[in-house]
């Protein structure tokens, strides 16, 4: 709209709307709370998988530090989630029901199960107490890790926001890859001497994430605009540059700790950028009525031929001002 009083005599290229106002009420989740919550959940999940692998292969330092990292990350994630609530004092209401139709409910239960076992694994590892329980907790945290890493993708996809909902096939792979890559970067930072598996995982995770993002953007078609432009576009591009730099640096930094550490930081930053990018893309998508109306109008049958509409052919008058 806003093109003066001109009348269009050709079919509209853009879908019609109500004064260009959004059809949807967009996400009210706060920045940086929710992108941080997505990021930290991924870091925790990846760290727990690395911790379990480290235990099984006798990498004591890597095991201990990834367990502490997982606990710190999940703690931060939970704080970000609670802080984002409109009524933080009621956060326990999340556990009033067990509701499979709500990814937020399932996520709350995943967090409620994962948090204590991650805590037990870290506590046992640091104190040396109850090693048997510690091993069980480490295994439990690793078993919950894939759910922790991917449920947030379902959380976003199960909304009416076109750029999230239509990305439901790829988002879990984006988030799993992003979480594993970030945790690998952190492991290289924390335990460079034992981080060879993390270096390998970083490369694979980046590849999975990059392919998933590529496929997502291709399949979204016009909706991919949300990921490529504006604030979301800047975040996504930063992630796409930082991740391969990080992967390269952690491989190159085996003997040069400084380079390896910088690569680890780059991987963490890349994951954070991707989460901010996906989040901002959803906000932009919800705010654009064309993204809601366009695909819906396209799948409806064409309206009747004008001959069956004897009334005056009407045109939208543009909004004044």
């Amino acid at each position, binding site marked *: 709209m806003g093109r003066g009083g001109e009348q269009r005599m050709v079919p509209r290229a853009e879908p*019609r709307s*109500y004064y260009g*106002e*959004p*059809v949807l*009420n*967009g*996400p*009210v989740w706060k920045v940086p709370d929710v992108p941080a919550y997505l990021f930290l959940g991924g870091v925790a999940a990846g760290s727990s*998988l690395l911790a379990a692998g480290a235990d099984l*292969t006798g990498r004591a330092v890597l095991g201990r530090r990834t367990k502490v990292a997982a606990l710190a990350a999940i703690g931060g994630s939970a704080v970000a989630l609670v802080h*984002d*609530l*409109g*009524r*933080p004092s*009621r956060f326990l*209401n*999340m556990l*009033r029901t067990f*509701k499979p*139709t*709500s990814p*937020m409910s399932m996520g*709350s239960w995943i967090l409620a199960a994962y948090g204590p076992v991650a805590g037990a694994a870290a506590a046992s590892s640091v104190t040396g107490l109850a090693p048997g329980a510690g091993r069980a907790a480490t295994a439990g945290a690793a078993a919950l*890790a*894939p759910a922790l*890493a*991917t*449920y947030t993708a*379902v959380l976003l*996809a*199960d*909304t*009416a926001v076109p750029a999230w909902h239509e990305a*439901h*096939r790829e988002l879990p*792979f984006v988030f*799993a890859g992003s979480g*594993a890559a970030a945790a690998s970067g952190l492991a290289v930072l924390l335990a460079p001497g034992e981080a060879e*598996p993390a270096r*390998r995982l970083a490369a*694979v995770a980046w590849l*999975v994430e990059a392919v998933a993002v590529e496929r997502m953007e291709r399949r979204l078609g016009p909706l991919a605009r949300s990921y490529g432009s504006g604030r979301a576009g800047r975040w996504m591009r930063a992630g796409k540059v930082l991740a391969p730099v990080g992967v390269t640096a952690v491989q190159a930094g085996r003997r040069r700790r400084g380079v390896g550490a910088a690569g680890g930081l780059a991987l963490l930053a890349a994951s954070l950028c991707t989460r901010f990018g996906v989040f901002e893309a*959803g906000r932009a998508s*919800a705010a654009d*009525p064309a993204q809601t*109306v366009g695909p*819906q*109008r396209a799948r409806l049958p064409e*309206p009747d031929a004008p001959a*069956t*509409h004897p*009334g*005056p052919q*009407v*045109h*939208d008058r543009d909004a*004044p*001002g």
Partner: protein
Amino acid sequence: MTATQPRVGFFTDTSVCIGCKACEVACKEWNQVPDDGFRFTGYSYDNTVGLGADTWRHVAFIEQTAPSGDLRWLMASDVCKHCTEAACLDVCPTGSLFRTELGTVVVQEDVCNGCGYCIPACPFGVIDQRKGDGRAWKCTLCYDRTSAGQEPACAQACPTDSIQFGPLDELRERAARRVEVLHERGVTDARLYGESPDDGVGGAGAFFLLLDDAEVYGLPPDPVVPTRRLGAMWRRAAVAGVAMVAAAAASFLGGG
């Protein structure tokens, strides 16, 4: 009140809406809804823009001109659709949103913790978070009135019966007859919106007679409840999760 009570809803016939906004005012008065700002939009006579936490009835004003220069003024009072398959209700993690015995969808404000998930889940952009309060709010279809056998405040206040309240089956029959009458009179643009149980939300509990495409009124032309694909989404997440574990396990093979 028994389980056999019929499902109730709204039929909003926009062809007789005169844009008086009595529904908006009655809703605010009865439900004690706070002000929704004092913004001047320049959108014809509409300064409330759309449904939200503090606007539970919203009257849209659309000015259209024919090439002949004739003005057509569309007015329509929008409201929560009280969907058969309600996304807000599906995704609410606390159980705050619930289905009443009348088939309507209502938020229990003493339970809502303000997680905000219902807001982007709604394909119509109805429910929203109230600033400074943090919780999600929307039309209750005047649960306090309807559960006591009264009609909602907006329907009672409507001077032209543009807003009609009643058992959904009756409203659907009445709406179908109204469309026929309008078509006979040459108003071939008249069409129903949200009345079909076969649509993407299983049919709306509040449906409309419109005179132009839905999107002209700010409504989605073919809304689908996002949870219809939830099974597929979880399956994709499971595959991605398994891939993540496999990648992590593989990375520990080999030395270093």
